[in-house]
């Protein structure tokens, strides 16, 4: 499997070249184009592990309910993935390092050798944040494709670092996090419009997206017709 990310950062797309018989799993709706002989199988969870609970979990996490598995049967082939919002994409190689926690909505695709778990997050923490702070836990080895609204920048956390909840793309599970206030006081955090933020604690990398889809919606929303 070869992954090439093109048209960065504004209009990123991921071109995945598959050998005969190879498979890539992707978020439903991410496929832009593919070879004619590509076989597509749709499941509600990782292949061979489909279950009603898995589907429900995906429903809850705000991801579309389905995963598509593209298999290049009968010869090599390719699939091209894109996303709805303008922004960058990143290929991440899972290996011997810690698990990768990906914000729901930032996940694009992964190799079948990468395991996906939607059940990691405690609901109390997630709901309280008011944003789609749901996570997909990726483990195993192989490539993962992740997208962002805007540019992606990594932060090497060593101690504590704060990221606004709408700006988190992914982080290494070696980091702990807590949902907390941005300012010295709750009053200050809400008056200042920052609200809840995520404080990462420990050592590891967090990938941030430069822009916040919610803020863009707030800017654009008033100009759109109501229905």
């Amino acid at each position, binding site marked *: 499997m070869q992954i090439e990310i093109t048209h960065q*950062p504004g209009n990123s797309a991921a071109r995945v070249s598959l050998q005969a018989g190879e498979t890539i799993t992707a978020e439903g709706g991410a496929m832009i184009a593919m070879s004619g002989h590509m076989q597509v199988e749709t499941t509600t969870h990782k292949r061979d592990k489909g279950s009603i609970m898995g589907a429900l979990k995906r429903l809850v996490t705000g991801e579309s309910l389905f995963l598509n598995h593209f298999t290049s049967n009968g010869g090599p082939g390719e699939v091209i993935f894109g996303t709805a919002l303008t922004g960058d994409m990143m290929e991440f190689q899972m290996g011997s390092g810690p698990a990768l926690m990906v914000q729901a909505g930032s996940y694009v695709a992964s190799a079948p050798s990468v395991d996906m778990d939607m059940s990691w997050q405690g609901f109390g923490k997630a709901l309280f944040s008011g944003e789609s702070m749901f996570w997909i836990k990726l483990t195993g080895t192989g490539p993962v494709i992740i997208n962002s609204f805007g540019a992606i920048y990594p932060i090497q956390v060593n101690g504590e*670092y*704060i990221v*606004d909840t709408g700006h988190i793309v992914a982080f290494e599970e070696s980091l702990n996090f807590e949902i907390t206030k941005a300012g010295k006081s709750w009053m200050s955090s809400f*008056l*200042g*419009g920052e609200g809840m933020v995520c*404080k990462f604690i420990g050592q590891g990398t967090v990938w941030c997206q430069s*822009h916040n889809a919610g803020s863009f919606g707030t800017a654009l929303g008033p100009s759109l*017709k109501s229905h």
Partner: protein
Amino acid sequence: MQSTIEGAPAFAYINVDLEPGETVIAESDAMSSMAADLDMVAKFNGGFFGGLAKAFLGGESLFVNHFTNNTSSTRRVSLVQGTPGNTRQIDLNGNTFCLQPGAYIASTPGVNLGVKWAGFKSWFAKEGLFKLTVSGQGSVWYGAYGGLLEKEVDGEYIVDTSHLVAYEPQMQLKIQLAGGLFSSLAGGEGFVTRIEGKGKIIIQTRSLSGLADWLNPRLW
């Protein structure tokens, strides 16, 4: 204080490295990430009445956030506007600059934010009745949806409504039809802003209202 604009032109954001004791001020919700031991305090945007004026008249937030480094070494805060697009820094040295509502992102403490009457013509141009002025000593970061074009005007220049981002205070703005009545309406240009004087203006290559006008017929 060291600052860089990253991600430009499509997704510009600002990294500000604060030395011990330094402060940077940013509009509401501009912070995307920061060192956990920076102090963030929300304050009225130029006092209570000043904040009210800027919020209701200048299209800015009622509160701004003060990020202060009370540690003993350099700390970073990253700031960004709500829309994708480019960001610029201007350094003020006693001079004044005018910003359209919503363009302001952040500034250093020596910069004063004020609201001035821009006239009904500005409101007609969908650019608000009031304009935001920045003056004093220090740096200001502002941004727009799309790219930013800088133009030295000497005489007259015409900018489509909603594409003007910033201009020097001596520039005079007038609102008018783009051409004759028919060509203005049928040609989709509608009102334009006629700018007169000698000085710098900044134009954005896209506008949110343009995007909304495109999206609206497609929503149901």
